[in-house]
């Protein structure tokens, strides 16, 4: 399989995973600390609160798309390229999306981490 196809697969993983991550992060922010809820209300109630959150379910759908894209990409390229490259590029896309859509405080420290991880991801492709 050509490099173009492998990177196309990685792009599909990055886009769908980022949408899924942002939606699920927003859902978890709304629900609250799962450890605290589980301690006082049990595992069943914790699970109910998570799976009845609409944002979580839509995010799960996008993560499923990302998962199957990852499976196909892994069949096209080495796991030591596809795995780290898709994950690190997803990290960069998430940093942008989290700042815009989740209003997270992505400060200089986190941007520096993003640049280092992006550079590391680029090197992993060599």
């Amino acid at each position, binding site marked *: 399989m050509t490099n173009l196809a492998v990177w196309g697969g990685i792009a599909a993983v990055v886009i769908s995973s980022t949408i899924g991550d942002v939606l699920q992060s927003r859902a978890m922010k*709304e629900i609250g600390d799962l450890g605290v809820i589980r301690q006082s209300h049990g595992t069943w109630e914790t699970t109910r609160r998570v799976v009845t959150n609409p944002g979580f379910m839509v995010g799960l759908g996008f993560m499923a798309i990302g998962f199957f894209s990852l499976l196909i990409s892994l069949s096209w390229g080495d796991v030591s390229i596809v795995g780290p490259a898709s994950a690190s590029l997803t990290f960069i896309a998430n940093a942008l999306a989290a700042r815009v859509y989740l209003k997270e405080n992505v400060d200089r420290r986190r941007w520096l981490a993003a640049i*280092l991880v992006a550079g590391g991801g680029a090197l*992993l492709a*060599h």
Partner: protein
Amino acid sequence: MTARKFIILFAVAAFAACGDVSLGRGMKAFGAITLASLPSLLAALLNPWIILGILLLLGFFVSYLTALSWADLTYVLPATAVSYILMVLLAKFFLHEHVTIWRWLGVALITIGVGFVAIGPEATPGAHCHNREAVCEPATLADAGSEA
């Protein structure tokens, strides 16, 4: 950072690395999948390595959601990027893939990035249910209050 939170973050990294390597090993048995051979992807779901990979990624998912419930997305992702190191090590010693010096340098850069973000705050003030008063369900607020 409490011991519980540290264990959850490490679990996210370990499950992700082992799950991806297990899936990678399973998919190698099927060769390259094209649009014309998509049904073979369903057959792949019966492969033991794929099943193990899915179970490991399920563990990843539970620990990942737990981490997101008390930390920012932009904290959880880089803090658990230690999975890249585990993944490259497993790819080299378990899948016997060739790992070049450039990839090791990439791992080093990612590790430094992880270090930068890991020593910072884990959450944006007011971003999560347990540290603000809006949106939260009443029981959750009471729980968070009793913990504090």
